[in-house]
């Protein structure tokens, strides 16, 4: 789960990291009042959406007065960045910047450990730094059994700042960033830029935190930060139905059990010249209700021209899926051709159920995908 910048700032601030004051506004007049309260002569107004490249998209602007802040907020609010509508802006005094660094913690899959990274080349995309000037990135693996040790944090901080007092401030921030990362159950926590001001202070000007979805159950206070308004509505609906669904732009709606098979099915749609409309995993122990929910979400997508089921019965029982399909077609009009591939546990029962309502099913994945692609291209055939 991605947090908004303003949420990430609040978590870092709570962890004791110096973060400049800021306020969140969802209307231009709120923005004006916020700017007045902040009382700075120059302000930054930033779109709060889960998307990179906000600056390039025009989602970050400077303002010289509260009135001006209201004006730029009016420009940014409602803007669409990466397909997401901006509903909130963050307003903060423009910082005086002497230098910009980067600091981030991720979970490294290879070493199976958190890795703390810093770079004196901050304020830009860290991936770009890694690609073009990898020598400017310094990292250490954190041994979770002992945590981030003080000398390790200081050692990294000294890569950012020569002055030992400033490095100590930065080391303190690194320790707190690591702490915030753990406390939030994050898979990524970064400060970019980590700014040194002309007065020698070190402050976090922008913050990004991505929380591991698996942490949300035991962290209700973090889970409460979820902003459904910032997500695709169909994905919100799918999550509430316990389905893993990701909307794409194609025409073949896919209903599959298992994430790997779901991806392979999408890939095969593409292989045969079609475009998948979505990723959808109904999970292992599927019930007819999940199938109904899945069909409801997919049929709500107007781009979908054909629906493809690909079920490999293991724990999933094919008859459950068949019952779900039959029940769904009784509850609402699907109005799109359905191609069904079923094999494995209770396959025979499933075929019986389907043929009882005049539906057919295939047992071969390739055949089913080819047929679904053909139907999606034929438009609303049957």
């Amino acid at each position, binding site marked *: 789960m991605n947090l908004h910048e303003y949420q990430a700032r609040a978590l870092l601030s709570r962890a004791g990291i110096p973060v400049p004051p800021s306020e969140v506004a969802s209307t231009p007049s709120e923005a004006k009042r916020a700017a007045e309260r902040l009382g700075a002569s120059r302000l930054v107004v930033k779109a709060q959406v889960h998307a990179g490249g906000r600056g390039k998209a025009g989602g970050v602007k400077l303002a010289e007065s509260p009135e001006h802040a209201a004006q730029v907020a009016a420009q940014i609010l409602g803007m669409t960045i990466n397909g997401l509508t901006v509903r909130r802006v963050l307003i903060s005094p423009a910082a005086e910047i002497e230098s910009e660094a980067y600091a981030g913690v991720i*979970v490294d*899959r*290879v070493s*199976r*450990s*958190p890795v703390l990274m810093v770079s004196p080349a901050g304020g830009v995309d860290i*991936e770009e730094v890694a*690609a073009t000037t990898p020598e400017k990135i310094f990292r250490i693996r954190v*041994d*979770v*059994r002992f945590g981030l040790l003080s000398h390790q944090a200081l050692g990294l901080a000294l890569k950012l700042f020569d002055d030992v007092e400033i490095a100590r401030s930065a080391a303190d921030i690194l320790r707190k960033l690591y702490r915030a990362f*753990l406390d939030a*159950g994050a*898979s990524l926590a970064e400060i970019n830029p980590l700014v040194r001001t002309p007065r020698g202070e070190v402050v976090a000007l922008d913050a990004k935190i991505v929380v*591991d*979805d*698996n*942490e949300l*159950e*035991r962290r209700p206070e973090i889970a409460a930060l979820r902003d459904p308004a910032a997500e695709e509505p169909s994905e919100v609906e799918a999550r509430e139905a316990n389905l*893993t669904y*990701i909307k*794409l732009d194609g025409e073949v709606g896919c209903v*599959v*059990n*298992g*994430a*790997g*098979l*779901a*991806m*392979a099915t*999408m*890939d*095969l*749609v*593409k*292989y045969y010249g079609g475009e*998948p409309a979505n*990723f959808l*995993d109904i999970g*292992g*122990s599927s019930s007819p209700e999940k199938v109904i929910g899945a069909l409801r979400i997919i049929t709500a997508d107007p781009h979908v021209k054909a629906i493809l089921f690909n079920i*490999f*019965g*293991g*724990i*999933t029982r094919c008859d459950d899926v068949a019952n779900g399909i039959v029940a769904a077609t009784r509850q609402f009009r699907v109005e799109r051709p359905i191609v069904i591939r079923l*094999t*494995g*546990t209770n396959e025979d029962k499933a075929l019986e159920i389907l043929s009882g309502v005049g539906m057919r099913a295939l047992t071969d*994945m*390739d055949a089913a995908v080819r047929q679904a692609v053909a139907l999606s291209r034929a438009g609303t055939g049957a």
Partner: protein
Amino acid sequence: MSVFVDASTRLVVQGITGRDGAFHARQMVAYGTRVVAGVTPGKGGQEFDGAVPVFDTVVEAIAATGANTSVIYVPARFAADAVFEAAEAGIRCIVCITEGIPVLEMTRVYAYVKEHGARLIGPNCPGLITPGAAKVGIIPGQICSPGPVGVVSRSGTLTYEVVYQLTRAGIGQSTCVGIGGDPIVGTSFIDCLAAFQEDPATTAVVMIGEIGGTDEQQAAKFVATRMSKPVVGFVAGRTAPPGRRMGHAGAIISGSEGTAVEKIAAFEDAGIGVMQRPADVVPLLEARL
């Protein structure tokens, strides 16, 4: 022969009295796996299905039954602790089926398991099966058949699909290992490839990867430099958008890292036969066996 599990496997099922644990314990017993014990705290002294003794702790289960392998079906919030317990008790091979363990929790679990010299397979995996000898986890036994091909995969049903293609074509498997779809798993592709390379019963390997991370890339290097047996491979997620978690917690393209394109390129560089679609496994293998 085979890898990780075989006829000498003496299995304890952690969470045997739960819904999933009970269902799969029966499936494993039916397959012929030596399920020697179950563990559910507070249910020690009972018998599962009148045949498998249940204990409060893994330590007690080992003491009474000589269990050497465990499979974990407990809910996510107890699963990490179940792995800790199994490792501490001295289980050598721990198979964690449970999905949903936080990745930070796994960093600690991995360190612990490693210190205890145990092997962890998973979490968030279907387990493994040595056809005709032992099934540990949830892979449907009926789609497998004994034979010379080792299968290793990050996926569940996609593995079944591939194994099903093999079995239908008359190509049996030495062992099929589902290593799990999480960012941190106990056993990597390389661990499995190394084991298959050593295993005299395995003559070729199928590797089924997906987007996210660099495990496939490292595995490709291992294949190129350390393996003499032929390997064919598949990578799921060519059509996956970046930045989205594709069902598996580990199946996510982070920035530009972990795409199917780079993994497939690594496979090709390493001389791995690349499957464009699951059905390609049979002709590619037949050309190499």
